[in-house]
């Protein structure tokens, strides 16, 4: 038993100075975000909504991939989008042109979306039951990896123009994805990019991730991405109550 404040010996490290007392917190710093992310996850699950957190560096082709996906699959299930960028409505306008509902979140100085922002985004978007919501995170291969939004899956998009070694340079991001989409494969003939080395590097930080090479411009490889989406949307959708 501590003579100064009476706290027990087994609850964390303490430093005492005369005239002070120590409060033990033992609190996860991200607990608040994780708690709110849990609310988002429950809300989405209860509505049968598949939410996918799309993360990448700026310029990987996320928005092009999303707009093409909406145009190709929008007839199969409702798709809506939460766009995250520091500034502008550029990406939201591109999504809106497809006819899909979209909400833009501008983070200002912020470098990532967090669970509170997604909660507000979802409230504004009001996506229908049994639909798919893409959350396009702020373009950044570092910070978004740490913040759970309540999504069902994380997809990391990387383009072949970004060069070699990215999974090892940004291991937190590549380790956090369920799915890695290697985009702009139509440019491979013009580049010195080793796809096998990329797969090997990805496996070193994330042995379980599924990796799909795609070109959002030509459509190469998109069938596998669409099959992935159909499979997960089908698992997430609520089954109508019998009777």
């Amino acid at each position: 038993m501590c003579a100064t404040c009476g706290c027990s010996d087994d609850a964390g490290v303490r430093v005492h100075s005369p005239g002070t007392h120590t409060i033990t917190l033992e609190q996860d710093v991200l607990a608040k975000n994780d708690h709110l992310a849990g609310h988002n996850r429950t809300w989405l699950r209860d509505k049968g909504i598949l939410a996918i957190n799309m993360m990448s560096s700026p310029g990987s082709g996320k928005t092009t991939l999303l707009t093409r996906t909406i145009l190709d699959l929008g007839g199969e299930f409702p798709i809506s989008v939460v766009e995250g960028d520091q500034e502008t409505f550029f990406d939201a306008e591109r999504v809106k042109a497809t006819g899909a509902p979209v909400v833009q979140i501008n983070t200002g100085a912020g470098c990532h979306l967090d669970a509170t922002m997604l909660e507000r985004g979802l409230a504004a978007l009001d996506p229908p039951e049994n639909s798919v919501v893409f959350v396009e995170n702020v373009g950044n291969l570092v910070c978004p990896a740490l913040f759970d939004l309540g999504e069902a899956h994380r997809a990391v998009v990387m383009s072949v123009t970004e060069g070699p070694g990215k999974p090892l340079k940004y291991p937190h991001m590549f380790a956090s994805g369920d799915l890695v989409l290697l985009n702009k494969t139509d440019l491979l003939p013009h580049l010195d990019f080793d796809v096998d080395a990329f797969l090997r590097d990805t496996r070193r930080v994330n042995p379980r991730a599924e990796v799909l090479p795609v070109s959002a411009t030509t459509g190469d490889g998109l069938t596998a991405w669409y099959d992935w989406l159909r499979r997960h949307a089908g698992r997430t959708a609520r089954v109508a109550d019998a009777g």
Partner: protein
Amino acid sequence: MHELSITQDIVDAVAARTGGAAVKSVRLEIGKLSGVVADSVRFCFEVICAGTALEGATLDITESPGRARCHDCGGEFRLDDLILLCPCGSANVEVLAGRQLRINSVEVL
């Protein structure tokens, strides 16, 4: 620079528990695999604490190492980065520790 918002969360969480009492020090634990840079948190801490009950508080950070277990050879080993490779050569490993990001305690006047 996610350390800025994370440090803001730390200061908010401490203020919520200390109820406006002057805070003399804050003890944090940051795991080597947490993705949070201790030096960046130190930098942000001073800026964010200015004008609050935490102004002038010292920040004491323990950086705890990562540990992992290999599902193939059964061994446990130290992991200083997220390259998930056991010394036996297997990548079938589970991270056991090193992702912590915790406020352990605060000292108030």
